[in-house]
């Protein structure tokens, strides 16, 4: 008999407990074959055969399925074993008495790491406390969401106020003699912002295909952001690069390849996004664990196989002025001032100062302000950052928008808001509310994974994206796992989701009487929460 000691890890320490019904099990082995974490294994147990005197010491051996007890291979509750079991004999059940986060720290001396979103949802979602309450019935012309035409586009790029434009009349033409910064009218949703490496090559390509398809086949001018891990040269040199926003973060990964490919590019990219910070783990740089740094990731990024921890800030940027001067100017110059350049920061108490500073932008080169809230997702983070740092998106977006209004400069630097959007399943509702609060557009990442088949959620299910063992083949570079993912199905699901979202956006625009985006139309919003009403300056109702 093996001894049991109190300090050993036991299954009641773990977040998920395997519930197994031996009477239903036929030992088909599918569950153990499927579990990418190796969290269950076949085992041999003994059963007493009979209580008769003659056979009282006779034991029978049986094969059972048993849960593994370990920090590396504990069950994540992904549910794949339950999916494959032909008899419903096995499933992972949430352990409400879990002591994992204490035991892990106590035993390893490490901080807990994981993927997904914050799992400490103490604040509730402000967006869910807001409803669209201004319905035009006899006040404005009614619109039909399905059949009327809506102008669902938003500027991406620096917008100059009228007094900065020198108009003159030349014959029967109105001409503008001041140079205009690049500006593109795009769909108000930007997808992606997940790097090559963080997600599998099939997932990344499926997002790119979905983006191209939505543009080319449905005429929905949606854009995708590459994330900080570079971009495949084949895509860079194709016409589809015009739908891609190239990201540059502190690691500058893949940019040498972009620079190298410039003479061969047939189209300009949709934009450049300078990533300073991200909402899921503000103050922390990107983090890609070595087990996901596959060979192609190493090549595109120009790094060896190692844990890739991007520095939290861009080395060599010490102030907002300097970042405008160095990053914005250089990125604008890189594409000859023809491509809008925006910046992404984690929402923070200080966001308004940053935005105000950018608004001064004397060179007209700041083309967008991406504000990422604390409910944003990530492929890998320290749990402490994920759960305890950051700033909610709603009020900070509102603060920035109102700061611009105060100066009469709203819309000059378009604001894009993100972080946990679509958490309740409907992206359109979140998007619409944020747009009414002042966002020009919104962006989303984590939701795309869930559309693709990720089983993770915000109550500690799976979220093992950092391990490289993603059971859905999404956050992995492993061949066996990635090939579980059907690239066409994923792209199709993404396309369908955004077509549904487009319809749902119109379903909100129509009753509010808006045939174009209601940016800053906070009069359409109401809330039953007095604090929310006061803070966001929207109508309180009861």
């Amino acid at each position, binding site marked *: 008999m093996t001894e049991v000691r109190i300090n050993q890890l036991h299954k009641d320490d773990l977040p998920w407990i395997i519930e197994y019904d031996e009477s239903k099990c036929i030992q088909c*082995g599918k569950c153990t074959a499927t579990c990418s974490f190796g969290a269950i294994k076949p085992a041999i147990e003994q059963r007493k055969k009979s209580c008769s005197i003659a056979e009282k010491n006779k034991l029978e051996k049986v094969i059972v399925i048993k849960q593994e007890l370990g920090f590396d291979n504990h069950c994540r509750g992904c549910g794949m074993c339950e999916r494959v079991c032909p008899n419903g004999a096995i499933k992972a059940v949430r352990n409400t008495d879990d002591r994992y986060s204490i035991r892990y720290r106590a035993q390893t001396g490490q901080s807990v790491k994981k993927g997904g979103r914050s799992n400490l949802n103490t604040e509730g979602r402000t967006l869910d406390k807001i409803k669209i309450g201004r319905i035009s019935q006899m006040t404005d012309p009614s619109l039909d969401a399905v059949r009327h035409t809506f102008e669902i586009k938003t500027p991406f790029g620096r917008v100059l106020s009228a007094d900065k434009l020198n108009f003159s009349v030349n014959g029967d033409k109105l001409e503008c003699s001041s140079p205009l910064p690049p500006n593109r009218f795009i769909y108000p949703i930007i997808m992606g912002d997940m790097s090559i490496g963080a997600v599998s090559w099939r997932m990344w390509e499926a997002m790119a295909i979905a983006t191209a398809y939505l543009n080319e086949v449905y005429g929905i001018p949606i854009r995708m952001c590459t994330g900080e891990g570079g971009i495949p040269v084949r895509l860079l040199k194709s016409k589809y690069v015009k739908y891609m926003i190239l990201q540059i973060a502190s690691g500058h990964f893949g940019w040498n390849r972009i620079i190298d490919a410039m003479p061969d590019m047939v189209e300009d990219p949709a934009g450049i996004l300078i990533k300073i910070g991200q909402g899921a783990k503000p103050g922390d740089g990107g983090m890609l664990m070595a087990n996901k740094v596959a060979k192609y990731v190493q090549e595109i990024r120009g790094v060896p196989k190692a844990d890739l921890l991007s520095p939290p800030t861009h080395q060599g940027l010490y102030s907002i002025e300097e970042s405008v001067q160095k990053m914005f100017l250089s990125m604008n110059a890189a594409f000859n001032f023809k491509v809008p350049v925006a910046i992404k920061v984690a929402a923070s108490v200080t966001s308004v100062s940053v935005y105000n500073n950018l608004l001064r932008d004397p060179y007209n080169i700041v083309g967008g302000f991406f504000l990422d809230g604390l409910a944003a997702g990530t492929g890998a983070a320290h749990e402490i950052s994920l759960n305890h740092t950051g700033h909610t998106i709603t009020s900070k977006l509102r603060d920035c928008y109102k700061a611009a209004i105060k100066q009469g400069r709203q819309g000059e630097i378009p604001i894009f808001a993100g972080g946990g959007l679509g958490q309740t399943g409907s992206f359109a509702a979140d998007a619409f509310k944020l747009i009414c609060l002042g966002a020009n557009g919104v962006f989303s990442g984590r939701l795309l994974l869930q559309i693709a088949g990720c089983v993770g959620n915000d109550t500690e299910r799976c979220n093992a994206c950092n391990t490289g063992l993603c059971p859905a083949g999404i956050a992995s570079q492993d061949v066996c796992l990635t*090939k579980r993912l059907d690239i066409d199905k994923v792209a199709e699901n993404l396309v369908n989701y955004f077509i549904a979202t487009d319809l749902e956006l119109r379903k909100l625009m129509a009753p509010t009487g808006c045939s174009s985006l209601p940016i800053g139309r906070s009069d359409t919003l109401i809330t039953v929460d007095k604090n929310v009403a006061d803070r966001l300056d929207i109508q309180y109702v009861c």
Partner: protein
Amino acid sequence: MEKVVINGIENNDRMSTQALLQLIEEKLEEGYTDFEINACGQHDIGGSAWSRTEGKELNFYITNPGQRVGAMARKGTNIFVNGSTPADVGWLNSGANIVVKGDCGDTAGHCAASGKIYVSGRVGTRSGALMKHDPKFETPQFWILKNTGSFSFEFMGGGIAVVCGYDCAGLKSVLGKRSCVGMVGGIIYVRGNVADIAKTVSLKELDDEDKKFLKSGMKDFLTAIDKKGLADTLLDFSEWHKIEPLPTEEKVKKVSVREFRKTQWIEGGIFGDFIEDDMSIYPLAATGKGRLRQPVWNKELCVDCELCMKNCPNSAITKDDNKIYSSCDDKCIGCSICETVCPKAAWTMKNNQKEVD
């Protein structure tokens, strides 16, 4: 019986719409059928009226009316408006013949379900919206000599509209902007430029039936509006088209995502220069290359007890005459049962997971 003459204003004293309509109703009750109404903007004239005199139709000769002339008018009613009219002429027309010698305001012919509306000028926005055809009644017709405003024929479900595009030189579209949105039925004949109509309708050439209809209909129309002289110009069919809704299947026919990837996407995929992806999709609990782990047998340790063979759920393990055991890749799913049951640890599982290279 002589004609009833009603003046909408007399000695600076304007009759209310209600008073005027009730006066008409009184006269109808008395059996009058002909009315000359010199209106002063009173609304709803000519609507929902019927003749109390057997065999005689109602005739309204109207000047200077308000909105909704002939709205909800019935079969057996003839309305002549000398001059232009404001909005909603022939709204929900249920069988009347309405002639407007002038322009009409917005939403003319809105929801018209039967009868004929002839306009010798232009009509405003959203005209012809929601026209419909109930097969138990005559097909509604809506003839316009010149052009329509934007958003016209929205949600049209049936009936025939004819936009003759006369006096429209220089217009980008004789249907304004964004017309025909949500049109699901009916036909619009149109002469001249057409632009910016809904994507769910199609602009087609006329066939012989269409020409026949236009030829006979045009004669009645031009006679009614006193413009017979325009017949030659307007019957030059080279300038005509017809608009019909696309059949439902055509509306949804789009290339599939898979087809798009295969035919329009970057050949070989964007990672094709790094990764050889055969595009196969592994199920959960896959065999062969899709296995996460695979068993390896060690001859030295095996005592030939056959426990693995007997317990392998997929009968993947066999042994040859020399007692060499092997596991068949195409059957084995890598479940580790052989490893577990082997008393001598002759089977061990090798991790098959490997990152892409």
